[in-house]
């Protein structure tokens, strides 16, 4: 039964199909005409081999149109299309063969023209196989899609690289003399690529060609070129060279300027961004050297500023600079002065790049911390302040107006121009308003007192080094102090004022004493309380020196009866003229040397221990140094170990005449204890007081200790410093702390 139903159904279908193809024609004539039309259409559509003559066959388009109309009437067009696409796939080996031929040739010669030729050839195939317009757009797009799918599947893996090289070859040449006609001449290539769908497929390759071109250009023209701004040059280069290329590549078919703008908008801004980013990256890498070159690198800094506004690379810049600083600056091999000058340059540079100072703050922090750990930083800054600079390369800009030290401002919210802190500012960021360099340097340390103390020490050293009352030098110091007063305030430098006054008073006093009774001694009388602690010595000048000193002291007492001279014989210089049997020696030496040679006038041979005893007690190494000085001058000779003999007659052969020269032997040890040594001394005193108060008053909290320490004259530590000090004492096991109360550990 079932078969009956099936049979009838099949019969019905058959009848239907037959009648559709036969179109109610008598007999099977309809069927015959249909098959003729089908044959004609498929034959015409069949992809032909372009290399064989059959491709030259011309077809009558009218016949074809009639055939297609017939097929359409029979609803067989889809089948026709299917057959056509099937044939296309089968015929694609023809193209594949040619592609392989071209690629092999390309691999052999690396000639991009071959690829261009290949593309044109494929385009030929594509056009030849395309179905006539009459089949409608659906058919055409189906064909294009299939063609491209097949094409992509047969393109070898080496093709993208080859394509890229071809793209590169279309770029404008770096040589400005070569006209850009070359660019426009590549238009057929781009059209072919677009027609074959390669533009979409290799979009990223084309873009990367653009990027790389820009990158190469930026790197080659801008590396190491910091004097002037390169951005405007780069922009005009983009306009002259890259835009034409982009026009050909992306906006070939544009009719109106609006259309061009629309087409280029996306890719144009991407390229422009890339240019900025490349320059920014380059400058970020070079930033350390740019800073070294400052102020000859202003252009680079302005470029960097502009780039940073477009490209968010601020964090990278900070990182790069910090890394460079750590590697190249903040290590023991670098001179403190160098670090300071680089720091100053960094300040100046980053102020240009980022006026609010966030970048500077982030970069400066490690430098400041490092400088704080260096023992000679203060000395270095201070010596720079007073212009004690042999190299003459001052950190401070001469033209910078001298201002008082500024305190860190608190935000003034009533200021109508107030601006919030920049978004990448850290929580500890302090808006340091563009302050002068000295303020910034001094702010490395928490208090300026350290500087003032070091200043005093330095001034003391320099004043003591002044010989023969060199008025000019003293006047220079006075000028310096006046300038520094503006910075540090009058009160802080009062001590320095006293020291300077001591100098001029000494001069006046000396003149007076010399009138009364002339003497070769010209002392500098200093007020002990106002001068930094001078290194003590037990040196006693022997013989005539002693007599000279006493004589002078007597005259002084007549002049100033209420005062008494206390000699510091180890300081100063002595101008000596030694009269030996065969020669005279004319030297300027430190007092200890003079004392020793004076002793040799009593007897010609001394042992070192005898000598040391005769001048009071001095350091053995200092004594040895003094004696070596005379040995070098060939006045003494070391006979046995530690035994020295005066050479009344020079030992050298007389036929070698020696140049008699005045030798100045200077004291190279600074006579003044440095501020840091003094600070350590002070901390010892504070400790005694802390010990005393904790013994008698029991455990105390930090703030109470701080307030009690105000009893100590000259106590100047902050609570934080005290806290650190106590903490250090605790680590040494001297103190215990419980519930915030400090007590002695006993």
């Amino acid at each position, binding site marked *: 039964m079932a078969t009956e139903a099936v049979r009838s159904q099949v019969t019905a279908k058959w009848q239907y199909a037959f009648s559709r193809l036969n179109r109610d024609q008598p007999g099977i004539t309809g069927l015959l005409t249909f098959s003729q039309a089908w044959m004609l259409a498929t034959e015409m559509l069949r992809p032909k081999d372009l290399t064989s003559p059959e491709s030259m066959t011309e077809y009558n388009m009218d016949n074809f149109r009639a055939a297609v109309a017939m097929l359409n009437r029979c609803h067989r067009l889809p089948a026709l299309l299917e057959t056509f696409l099937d044939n296309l796939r089968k015929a694609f080996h023809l193209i594949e063969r040619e592609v392989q031929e071209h690629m092999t040739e390309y691999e052999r010669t690396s000639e991009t023209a071959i690829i261009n030729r290949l593309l044109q050839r494929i385009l030929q195939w594509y056009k030849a196989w395309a179905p006539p317009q009459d089949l409608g757009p659906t058919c055409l797009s189906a064909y294009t899609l299939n063609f491209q799918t097949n094409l992509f599947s047969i393109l070898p893996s080496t093709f993208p690289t080859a394509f890229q090289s071809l793209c590169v070859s279309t770029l404008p040449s770096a040589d400005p003399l070569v006209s850009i006609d070359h660019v426009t001449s590549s238009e057929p290539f781009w059209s072919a690529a677009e027609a074959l769908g390669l533009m979409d497929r290799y979009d990223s390759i084309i873009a990367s060609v653009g990027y790389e071109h820009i990158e190469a250009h930026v790197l080659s023209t801008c590396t190491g070129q910091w004097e002037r701004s390169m951005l405007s040059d780069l922009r005009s280069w983009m306009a002259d060279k890259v835009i034409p290329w982009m026009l050909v590549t992306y906006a070939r078919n544009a009719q109106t300027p609006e259309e061009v703008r629309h087409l280029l908008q996306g890719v144009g801004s991407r390229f422009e961004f890339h240019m900025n980013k490349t320059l920014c990256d380059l400058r970020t890498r070079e930033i350390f050297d740019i800073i070294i070159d400052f102020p000859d690198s202003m252009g680079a800094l302005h470029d960097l500023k502009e780039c940073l506004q477009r490209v968010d690379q601020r964090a990278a810049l900070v990182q790069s600079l910090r890394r460079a600083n750590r590697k190249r600056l903040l290590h023991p091999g670098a001179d403190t002065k160098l670090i300071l000058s680089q720091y100053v340059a960094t300040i100046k540079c980053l102020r240009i790049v980022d006026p609010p100072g966030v970048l500077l703050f982030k970069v400066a922090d490690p430098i400041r911390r490092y400088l704080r750990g260096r023992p000679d930083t203060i000395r270095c800054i201070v010596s720079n302040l007073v212009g004690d600079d042999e190299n003459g390369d001052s950190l401070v800009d001469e033209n910078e107006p001298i201002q008082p030290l500024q305190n860190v401002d608190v935000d003034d919210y009533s200021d109508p121009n107030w601006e919030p802190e920049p978004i990448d500012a850290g929580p500890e960021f302090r808006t340091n308003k563009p302050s002068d360099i000295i303020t910034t340097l001094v702010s490395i340390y928490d208090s300026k007192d350290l500087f003032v103390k070091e200043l005093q020490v330095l001034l003391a050293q320099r004043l003591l080094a002044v010989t023969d009352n060199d008025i000019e030098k003293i006047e220079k110091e006075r000028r310096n102090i006046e300038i520094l007063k503006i910075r540090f305030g009058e009160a802080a430098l009062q001590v320095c004022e006293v020291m300077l006054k001591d100098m001029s008073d000494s001069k006046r006093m000396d003149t007076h004493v010399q009138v009364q009774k002339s003497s070769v001694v010209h002392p500098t009388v200093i007020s002990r309380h106002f001068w930094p602690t001078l290194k003590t010595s037990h040196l006693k000048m022997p013989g005539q020196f002693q007599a000279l000193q006493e004589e002078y002291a007597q005259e002084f007492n007549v002049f100033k009866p209420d005062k008494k001279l206390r000699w510091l014989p180890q300081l100063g210089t002595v101008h000596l003229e030694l009269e030996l049997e065969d020669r005279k020696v004319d030297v300027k030496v430190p007092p200890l040397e003079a004392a020793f040679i004076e002793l040799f006038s009593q007897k010609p041979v001394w042992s070192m221990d005898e000598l040391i005893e005769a001048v009071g007690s001095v350091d053995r190494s200092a004594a040895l140094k003094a004696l070596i000085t005379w040995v070098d001058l060939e006045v003494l000779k070391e006979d046995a170990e530690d035994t020295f003999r005066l050479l009344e007659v020079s030992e050298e052969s007389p036929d070698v005449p020696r140049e008699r020269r005045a030798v100045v032997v200077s004291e190279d040890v600074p006579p003044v204890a440095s501020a840091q040594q003094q600070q350590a001394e002070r901390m010892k005193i504070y400790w005694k007081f802390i010990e005393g108060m904790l013994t*008698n*008053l029991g455990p105390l909290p930090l703030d109470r200790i701080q307030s009690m320490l105000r*009893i100590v004259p000259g106590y100047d530590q902050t609570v934080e410093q005290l806290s650190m000090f106590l903490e250090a004492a605790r680590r040494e096991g001297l103190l215990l702390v419980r519930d915030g109360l400090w007590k002695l550990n006993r």
Partner: protein
Amino acid sequence: MEQLTSSLAPPRSSQKSNVTTSNQQNSGSVTKRLGNELMTLMMSSSPGISAFPKSDGNLFEWVGTIEGAPETVYAGLAFRISISFPPNYPYVAPAIKFESPCYHPNVDINSGAICLDILQDKWSAVYSVQTILLSLQSLLGEPNNASPLNVDAAGLWDRPDDFKTQVMKHYRGIKDES
């Protein structure tokens, strides 16, 4: 206690009569002197004696600590004293008394008053806090049994073991009061 002061000494009032007039002008120099004494005391490291002002605002009230010298009955013991400087210091001796109970022939066990000649009639402006503290420290080991404030203690002095027992009975030590 006053009556125990040696009658041989001239009355103290006569000594200071001319000084008190210039009291006001002198308070600055007294503070300075006390500051110097404190500095000297802190910088000299005499074992077992120490003193410090009670507060930073007032240099006239000090607290001191005296430890018994080794090889005396007071060895290893520490006593707290209070020192109160008069406005005309150093022309007048500071008032000193034991704050912690001290069983000693010349110390009143209840009030802490001390009988020491240099604190009364033998006072001189050349003495300082440091000399007072040193005297007190030596007084612990060598009492003046001729003028006792604590008669029991004076009587017991010749029997060191019993004396030590009494000392320890009264000894409180120094607790850490803040």
